[in-house]
C-alpha cells in the first residue's frame, strides 16, 4: 500500500489539489454576495492603475481628436450647427412635455415613479474573460456602495454590483449569462425573466399565448427587489412560438450600448 502511494504520489497530490480548488469554487458559489479578502486586495491594488490607464487613454484620445485628427472638422462643424438647431427645437418640445407630465403626475398620483438618490461612477475596466460580462467602476465601499446595488445608465439598466472594495466595484451586466431579472413587457404587462445571453438578452418564461411583438419595450418589474420598477431593459427583437410548448422564445436587444459605456449611476437609496 505504502509503495503504491509512493509510486503515484505526484498524481494523488495533483488530484487532491484540483479537488480542493473545486471545493473552494463550490463554496464561493454559495457566497456570491460576499467579497473575499483576496478579491478585495486585488481590486484595491489594481484600482489606481486602472484609473490611471483610463485617464491616460482619455488624455491621448482627446489630444488626438482635438489637435491632430482634424480632417473633417469643418464639415463636422456645419453638421453640428444644424444638429444644434434641431436639438434646440426638440428641447423646447421636451420642456413642454415635461411640464405636461408633471401636471398629469400630480393629477393621477402616479406612484410608480422611480425617484431614488444615485451616485455617478466611471467605468474603469472590463471583464478579463471573453465569456463573462462584467465591468469595474471607480467607486467602492468608501463611497457607500455595497454588493447588490442596481447600476443604471441614461438608456436603461446596466446591472448590479457583485463585488466591492474600498475604491472600486465590479458590476455584473444584464447581458451576462448568470444574470436574471424579473421583467415585464411595457405595452401588455406580460411578465417574464430577462436572462443574459452574451451580447443580447432573452425573455424566459413568457407564456406562449402572451401578446409580445417585436419592438415592444421590456422594463424591470421590480419583483426581485433589486431594481426599481419600470427601468428599460431592452427592446423585443425576434419572437418565436412553437406549435407545442408552454413558453415562447423571445430575443431582446439590450437598451444600453455596453461597448460605449463610460459613465453609470449606482442607485443607492430606497424609494422616497
Amino acid at each position, binding site marked *: 500500500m505504502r509503495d503504491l502511494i509512493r509510486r503515484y504520489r505526484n498524481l494523488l497530490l495533483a488530484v487532491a*489539489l484540483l479537488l480542493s480548488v*473545486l471545493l473552494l469554487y463550490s463554496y464561493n458559489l454559495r457566497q456570491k454576495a460576499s467579497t473575499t479578502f483576496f478579491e478585495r486586495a486585488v481590486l484595491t491594488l489594481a484600482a489606481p492603475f486602472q484609473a490611471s490607464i483610463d485617464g491616460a487613454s482619455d488624455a491621448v484620445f482627446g489630444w488626438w481628436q482635438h489637435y491632430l485628427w482634424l480632417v473633417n472638422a469643418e464639415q463636422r462643424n456645419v453638421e453640428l450647427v444644424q444638429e444644434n438647431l434641431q436639438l434646440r427645437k426638440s428641447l423646447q418640445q421636451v420642456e413642454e412635455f415635461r411640464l405636461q407630465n408633471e401636471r398629469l403626475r400630480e393629477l393621477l398620483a402616479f406612484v410608480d415613479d422611480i425617484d431614488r438618490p444615485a451616485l455617478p461612477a466611471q467605468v474603469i475596466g472590463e471583464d478579463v*474573460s471573453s465569456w463573462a460580462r462584467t465591468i469595474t467602476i471607480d467607486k467602492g465601499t468608501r463611497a457607500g456602495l455595497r454588493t447588490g446595488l442596481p447600476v443604471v445608465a441614461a438608456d436603461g439598466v446596466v446591472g448590479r454590483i457583485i463585488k466591492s472594495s474600498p475604491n472600486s466595484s465590479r458590476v455584473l451586466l444584464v447581458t451576462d449569462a448568470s444574470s436574471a431579472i424579473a421583467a415585464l413587457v411595457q405595452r401588455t404587462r406580460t411578465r417574464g425573466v430577462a436572462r443574459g445571453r452574451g451580447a443580447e438578452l*432573452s425573455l424566459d418564461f413568457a407564456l406562449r399565448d402572451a401578446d409580445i411583438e417585436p419592438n415592444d419595450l421590456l422594463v424591470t418589474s421590480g419583483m426581485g427587489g433589486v431594481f426599481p420598477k419600470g427601468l428599460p431593459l431592452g427592446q423585443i427583437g425576434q419572437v418565436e412560438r412553437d406549435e407545442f410548448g408552454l413558453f415562447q422564445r423571445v430575443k431582446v436587444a439590450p437598451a444600453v450600448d455596453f461597448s460605449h459605456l463610460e459613465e453609470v449611476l449606482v442607485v443607492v437609496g430606497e424609494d422616497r
Partner: protein
Amino acid sequence: MRGFFLYLSLGMLAVLLRTSVFPLFFTPGFCPDLLLVLVIYLGLSENMLRAVLLTLLLGGMQDSFSGTSLGLYVFVCLTILLLVRLLSEHLNVESPPLLILLIAGGTVTQNLLLAVCLTMFADVGPVVQVLLPALPQQMLANLLASFLILSFVLKIQHLFGNRAGLAGLVYQSKRHGT
C-alpha cells in the same frame, strides 16, 4: 523570490491590459488572454511547486476580475498547468511552433473546462452558447498574441546573447539534458 514577484507583476500587467487597454481597441472576443500564455509558460519553465503557487495566485487574480465566484479560474489554470507539465515530458518544449500549438490547445481546454464547470457547478444555462461562438476569435487572438510575444522575445534574446531557444525553459533543459 525575485522571479516569483516578477511573474506576479507580469500577471497583474496582463490583467490591466485585458481590463483597461485591450477593450479600447478590440471587441471582448478578440482580446488575447495573456494570463493563459503566462500559465503555459510557467508550466514549461518553472519547478512544480513554484509553478503551482504562482498559478493559484494568477487564477485568483483572474477570478477577481471575471465572473462571480473565486475559484473558477484557479481550477481552470491549475488543470491547464498540470496538463502542460504532463505533456512537456513527451515534447520538445523548446520548439517555438510547439509552444504556439500548446497555446491553441490551452485555449480549447480552457473554454471546455469553463463550460463544464459553469454548467455543472454554477448552473449558468446559456454559457455554452456564449463560449462556443467566441472560441475561434479567442483562439485567433491568443495565437496572434503569443506569436508576437515569442517573436519579440526571441529577437531580444538574439540581440543580447547567442542563445537559440526560448530563455526560461532552463528547468526542462536541465531535466532532459538538452
